[in-house]
């Protein structure tokens, strides 16, 4: 048979190349080659998507920096891109600080709760309890983010924060948004950290137990440090999700459209880069206007931050795997 299927095909995605190996091209071999090419084309779609994302963001960002200086954008402390004339200012710092502020509150919630849940699931939980706790975390991960935002807006702020902290809590405030973003990224942190700890070889635990270590010592002094890079990857991934989260902040934390100075109080409204994009790009900003370009400049900044965090977490997970596999 000329077209023996497991003859190694010489070129990737090149059904037409490599005639030396297949002496005659049977219809079957041509069909196989065509299938291979079409599968490659499908796989290329994801690369094209990335390229288009970068292109669309870069095109408008370059145009934006034609009008606004990079120093003003990155270090300016007055963010009023919607205002007209002299009032208009493009200092992104207040939005950036708002994003990091809310992410910070979110991590204060997600890190302790997520890691404790992960340690419990990986080291302590009996099978029966695991079967209940895991699905609860999965339910939490499956709830659409707009539901978290709605809950922050209609319950956390009026029923919890105002009675506790007084009436000066604004309807949109960084605290409510941060708390709910924290709850939102908690399942991500917990499940990635749990995977990292479960992957620690059992012999390490046996060694420590054999020397009389308690379960607490084994969990915190053996398994936790051994899984550290995976756990850090979990935190980085959680932070990256929190930074890109839109709807919770848009509903409960502020739109980020008008920030004349950096917001420092947790009970005041600020906003985030993602919230600014979603509140400003409602489909009717004309192409080519400075308003339209601003959206993409902020989007590009957001994309770069998330890309860096994600590459970092992939690296950390990879480094961790090399040690034990």
């Amino acid at each position: 048979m000329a077209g023996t299927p497991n003859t190694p095909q010489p070129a990737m995605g090149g059904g037409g190349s490599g005639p030396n190996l297949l002496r005659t091209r049977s219809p079957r071999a041509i069909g196989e080659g065509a299938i291979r090419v079409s599968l490659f084309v499908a796989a290329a779609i994801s690369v094209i998507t990335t390229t288009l994302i970068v292109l669309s963001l870069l095109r408008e960002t370059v145009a934006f920096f034609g009008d606004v200086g990079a120093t003003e954008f990155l270090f300016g402390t007055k963010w009023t891109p919607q205002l007209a004339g002299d009032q208009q200012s493009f200092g992104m710092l207040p939005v950036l600080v708002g994003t990091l502020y809310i992410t910070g509150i979110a991590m204060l919630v997600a890190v302790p709760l997520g890691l404790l849940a992960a340690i419990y699931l990986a080291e302590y939980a009996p099978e029966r309890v695991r079967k209940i706790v895991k699905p609860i975390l999965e339910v939490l991960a499956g709830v659409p983010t707009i539901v978290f935002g709605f809950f922050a807006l209609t319950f956390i702020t009026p029923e919890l924060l105002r009675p506790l902290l007084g009436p000066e809590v604004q309807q949109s405030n960084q605290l409510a948004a941060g708390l709910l973003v924290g709850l939102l990224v908690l399942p991500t942190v917990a499940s990635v950290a749990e995977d990292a700890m479960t992957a620690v070889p059992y012999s390490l635990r046996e060694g420590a137990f054999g020397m009389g270590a308690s379960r607490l010592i084994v969990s915190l002094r053996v398994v936790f440090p051994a899984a550290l890079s995976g756990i850090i990857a979990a935190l980085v991934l959680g932070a990256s999700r929190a930074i890109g989260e839109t709807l919770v902040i848009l509903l409960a934390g502020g739109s980020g459209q008008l920030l004349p100075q950096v917001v420092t109080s947790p009970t005041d409204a600020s906003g985030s880069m993602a919230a600014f994009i979603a509140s400003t790009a409602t489909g009717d900003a004309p192409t080519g206007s400075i308003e339209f370009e601003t959206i993409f400049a902020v989007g590009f900044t957001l994309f770069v931050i998330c890309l860096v965090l994600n590459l970092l977490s992939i690296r950390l997970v990879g480094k961790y795997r090399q040690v034990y596999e």
Partner: protein
Amino acid sequence: MTGAQIAAKAATQTTVISRRSKKDTRRESGFALIMWGALAIICLSIAVLLTTIVVDGLPRFSMDLFTNQPSKVNPATSGIQSAILGTLYLMAITAALVIPVGIATAIYLEEYADSTKWFNRFIELNIQNLASVPSVVYGLLGLAFIVRGPLDLGPTLMAGGITLTLLVLPVVIIVAREAIRAVPPSIRDGALALGATKWQTIWKQVLPGSISGIATGVILALSRAIGETAPLIVIGAAVSPRFNPDGLGSAFTAMPVQIFAYSKDADTQFLELASATILVLMGLLLLMNSIAIYLRNRFEQKW
């Protein structure tokens, strides 16, 4: 740190601790208490979240929701018919696009790609990265390239469907790859030894063997797409349209967009309407997840 170092460190730790075993047990139970406290907080938050939504939304939950169109002035009789239909259309478009592309990519990466070649490694890294791009950025891509620019579709169902497809494509690819990888090589070797071509092996053996995992991935992706709000807002989904979408080129709204529009209204009647819409959305999600669990149990292949 290597395993030996960690074990050695732990050993020194324990010799100290074992002499004070009383303190040790106290610490042990203290830590257990902290962990249970954390789990209690998590369970309590999710319980409060779900009950508030059910309690707020249930009184407003009626047939009106399904038979009436959204209204910005009349919350009492307002429904969400166009939003429900919009969401169903979007899911159909997304499924139709993401299933072939996602599975084809997964097959290419698992069965054909030589992972020592740089561009195959690049495709893999790229997919991992795409999975963590914020959804609002996909909205910007949709706005710049699909709604305007080269494709110029306008803010239509088709534009929304393509945007959501690109957004959830990495999810389908990642889960489908795992399902395909779980099919043991001996199955492939057997088929090839009997004279099947590579594609016949994949089509007749590998895909049927991984179908339950792939289906789970597709449903997982769709249940993420169904709740996505930000990209649809950015590409310019209509707010409270009083007409149903009538084709791929039609303006549209979707349930999450409608929830967003209602929650921003100061009138509390609209907030109840938003809660009721969330109930419908969560009901649909529950249905999709039940199907996923059923498929997993019914078709799962044990090797």
